[in-house]
């Protein structure tokens, strides 16, 4: 029964990928390339590329892609539900405990220490994105030709607009995208 197999495979991916994002990648590979052989190694690489270019978590993207390829639209739905079900149960449970016990001293102490740690984690994610955006080879190497000057200009412009105007994040992101498209068309890079 292909639907059940899809559901169970993505249930495992959803339940055991701690740490988000790339933490899920080896699990997905183990399930769909090595285990069930639903995708070849090169198809899997393509899937990762698409995931980076499109919005959404890599596990949800993989569930939709593999589900569609293997068993059509219903396969996509079954795989996606399997992939998010563990999250729904676990996170709702934690959210319940949080709303109920957040006044406790010990939990307050733990949360008080977690907040600055979370700020640091978000900052780190931002630095990673900026390194990919600013450097051609995706690594922090200050070599001429590796630095993407336009990307830095869009970043500074976006940052100033967010801080100094009432413009929301989505319009700012779209503006940066349009500017880059126009610039590369004008400069004949397309």
């Amino acid at each position: 029964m292909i639907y059940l197999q899809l559901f169970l495979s993505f249930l495992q991916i959803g339940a055991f990928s701690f740490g988000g994002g790339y933490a899920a990648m080896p699990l997905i590979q183990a399930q769909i390339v090595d285990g069930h052989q639903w995708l070849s190694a090169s198809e899997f690489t393509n899937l990762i590329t698409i995931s980076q270019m499109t919005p959404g978590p890599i596990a949800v993207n993989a569930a939709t892609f593999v589900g569609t390829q293997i068993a059509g639209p219903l396969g996509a739905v079954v795989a996606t539900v399997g992939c998010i079900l563990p999250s729904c149960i676990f996170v709702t449970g934690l959210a319940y405990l949080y709303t109920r016990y957040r006044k406790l001293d010990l939990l307050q102490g733990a949360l008080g220490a977690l907040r600055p740690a979370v700020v640091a984690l978000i900052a780190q994610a931002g630095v990673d994105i900026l390194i990919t955006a600013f450097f051609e080879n995706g690594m922090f190497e200050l070599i001429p030709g590796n630095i993407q000057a336009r990307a830095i200009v869009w970043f500074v412009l976006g940052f100033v607009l967010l801080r100094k105007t009432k413009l929301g994040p989505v319009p700012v992101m779209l503006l940066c995208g349009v500017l880059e498209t126009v610039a590369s068309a004008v400069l004949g890079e397309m």
Partner: protein
Amino acid sequence: MEKKSTVWKKLFLSTLSLSMFTFGGGYVIISLMKTKFVDQLHWINEDEMLDMTAIAQSSPGAIAVNGAIVVGYKLAGLPGVLISVLGAILPPMMILSLISLCYDAFISNSAVAAMLKGMESGIGAVIASVVWDMAAGVVKQKSFFSGFIMIVSFLACMVWKVNVIWIILAAAAAGVIRTMWSEKRGRQK
């Protein structure tokens, strides 16, 4: 707070539109949800948002989906969970279905590539702006403990490449020990 149906509708439309722009990992949607629910709608305060991020981070699964679940639960209980999860997964599902139909044309289109490249810088700016606000909040507490945790956590994930789960657990443990220690001192006085 506003009427239930209004909250549901706004919650669905917010997670749906934010989810369309979560390129580049789960923290992007956290940053977007912070600007939407904390700064614009004032439904959640900044400390709660950070607590929820910790919950989303320390649970299994994608951070974007987990973040939507915890915000949905906080704002509208179990129906909120369903609404925000649906909002969060519909855009990637529809986009991936379309792309799996016309993969070759999509991946070789240079206008698509340029648009995505530019948006990467925009996302970086959004995260930088959110981190600016949040770090300013931590600095304003004038607490050595908080500043220390923030700097060590940043070094741990950026330089020493420690798994985020350990950073979360270590920070929580440090907070618990500090609370127990100060309570013990309080009793002895």
